[in-house]
């Protein structure tokens, strides 16, 4: 910023990075912030350091948004997800700068990551009205009954976003949660949170109902145990938990029989085409029976 000032005579407007909870941008109730640095170690910004109370607020917001978001038509949810991609497309340059700084990539590499992230959102947008057809069934039961099975959203999903892949990894874990009709409480990458902060601004202007997606900048190790034990959280994606933290969180999740997405083998390749695993993990198959007769 200093050099910029010398060159142009203009002082840049410093950005205060806040949380995204319930469709609003609050500071952490704790008042805490922490410094974020780029891949080379130069300071980038201070971001809000979410506390346990912020997490509880986010879960309450996600729970409150669940009936509306899960009750929306799949067509509507698909359009909202597509709208996220549209708005991201308009912010390609900013995402490129964020990702380059966060992950230490060159401009072209960062642009490719941003494009992949946008395309990923589009891919999941297309799934909203196909999940039921692909994961559901008409059951040919041996009796005079009509029996059908439909996948329904599990509820509030707690997500520890990947620590390294700050944007592509983030949308790869958030988009499937929203596509199923679940609502999300996401703890972003701790060291690389700025792409998530920009994504929050996109979410806020993309017709995503307030509370459907909540993004907390903070530490997985600090917030994870409360997220995993919270009675109003139905499912967990622990992508951003390290090998030591994960078993502890899985144990905490057992207290309320949470669904926990199975850990894949080795480090995930976020550039690879995703499968249905995340859509299956955060849905419940409901079977309904009705007699058939005159």
């Amino acid at each position, binding site marked *: 910023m200093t050099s910029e000032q010398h060159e142009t005579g203009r002082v840049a407007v410093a950005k205060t990075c806040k949380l995204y909870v319930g469709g609003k941008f609050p500071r952490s109730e704790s008042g805490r912030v922490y410094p974020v640095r780029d891949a080379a170690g130069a300071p980038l910004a201070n971001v809000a350091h979410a506390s346990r109370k912020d997490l509880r607020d986010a879960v309450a917001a996600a729970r409150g948004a669940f009936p509306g978001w899960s009750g929306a038509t799949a067509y509507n949810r698909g359009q909202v997800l597509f709208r996220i991609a549209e708005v991201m497309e308009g912010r390609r340059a900013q995402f490129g700068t964020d990702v380059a700084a966060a992950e230490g990539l060159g401009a072209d590499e960062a642009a490719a990551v941003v494009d992949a992230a946008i395309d990923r959102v589009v891919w999941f947008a297309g799934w909203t009205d196909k999940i039921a057809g692909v*994961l559901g*069934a008409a*059951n040919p039961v041996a009796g005079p009954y009509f029996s059908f099975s439909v996948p329904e959203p599990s509820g509030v999903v707690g997500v520890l976003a990947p620590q390294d892949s700050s944007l592509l990894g983030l949308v790869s874990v958030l988009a499937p949660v929203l596509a199923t009709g679940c609502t999300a409480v996401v703890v972003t990458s701790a060291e690389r949170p700025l792409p998530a902060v920009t994504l929050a601004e996109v979410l806020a202007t993309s017709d995503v109902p307030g509370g459907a997606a909540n993004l907390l900048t903070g530490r997985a190790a600090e917030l994870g145990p409360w997220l995993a034990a919270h009675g109003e959280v139905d499912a967990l994606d622990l992508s951003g938990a390290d090998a030591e933290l994960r078993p502890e969180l899985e*144990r905490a999740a057992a207290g*309320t029989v949470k669904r926990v997405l199975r*850990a894949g083998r080795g480090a995930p390749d976020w550039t690879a085409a995703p499968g249905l695993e995340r859509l299956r993990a955060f849905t419940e198959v409901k079977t*309904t*029976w009705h007699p058939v007769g005159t």
Partner: protein
Amino acid sequence: MSGWEYAPAPESAAVANLRDRYRMFVDGEFTDGAGTPLTTLNPATGEPLAEVATAAQSDVDTAVRAARRAFERTWGPMPGAERAKYLFRIARLIQERGRELAVLETLDNGKPIKEARDSDIPTAAAHFFHHAGWADKLGYAGYGPEPRPLGVAAGVIPWNFPLLMLAWKIAPALACGNTVVLKPAETTPLSALVFGELCQEAGLPPGVVNVLPGSGDVGAQLVAHPDVDKVAFTGSTAVGKEIQRTLAGTGKKLTLELGGKAANIVFDDAPLDQAVEGVVGGIFFNQGQVCCAGSRLLVQESIAEELLGKLRSRVELLRVGDPLDKNTDVGAINSAEQLARITDLVAAGEAEGATRWSSSCPLPERGFFFSPTVFGDVQQSMRVAREEIFGPVLSVLTFRTPDEAIAKANNTPYGLSAGVWTEKGSRALWAAQRLRAGVVWANTFNRFDPTAPFGGYRESGFGREGGRAGLEAYLDV
């Protein structure tokens, strides 16, 4: 009704070919376990039925090793089309020995023979028949062209439907190419051991199916065994949580079918006589010892009095007694321990102010029996409205609007099943959409089929059993 009493119509206990002693089934052979033998009782008399060998840790190790060997050498590499034929054989053998199995199940469990004969055994056979067809069609199941088995699957099952729960675990596991170590419940091990004979008769390669009787500690050892790749558990929510904790961080695949406190909602336009039949079947089937039992009746206030009158009249006609009698509707509670739990919870219901009504049907003098019971004036905060009783006890609550019915129905940490009774199709589907439960029965209750996925929401567990969705639990996807 006087002058129209039923004559006794007992099934012959001799059909069960009961023996004094049963042994574990490991690696294709019946062997003595290193554990302390247990005595399994006939809950209808309280008397011993047979002595059963139990497993020690060394037996768990042996069985898992045998299952691993069979997975690697015979069952895993075998083409699906060949595996299928073994499953078809097993389905046929269950049908052919159906009468023997039904009587054995009734003796060991206490359930009415008409339920074992008409429900448990045929449905168990149907599960093997259905899954046999999957063995060579897994590429069409929706998990990719060549989904792979997981390896050694551990099954831990409860005592309420011993052979049926065995089928729910073993049939899909084998169809998907896994081998199995099964721990039947402590109080009902017999049909699982006779199933070992069926495996021998079917020529199933040794080690593909292993049965280890014993108590909860054998189950715990099996679940924690490092060489088990997948755990499938049906039982209480408390034990399910413990298993989830045990497996935390191991990467092993887990499915849980846990408790329930299902709401059976009767709207004012429901056909009342049909609804009464459904409500009675929903809670008194298998003495109410059913995880998806409709244990909370939610009835619309305007018809509550009329419905309860009909309900009491109907329940009064249920015949409680000798499970081997073909006319018996309600048999014996499975164990003294379970009877004590039911008695405790019913006492809590009375103490908390609910109004108890029990059938006047005489109970047998011996054995573990409990009168069909209906609680009125139940509040949502009472233990009888919140806790799973797992016995012939129905709690009745009322509601005024459809929204209130849904809110009360969903006011539980459980979410296994629910019932809706209404003549209005749009209302039935509206309610079915809003009920947070894995199975919703509209104008029917307690229907099961191997093609229809079954499983819970929330603390009723995760994973599905049956149909295409059920295969996921046994595939590496």
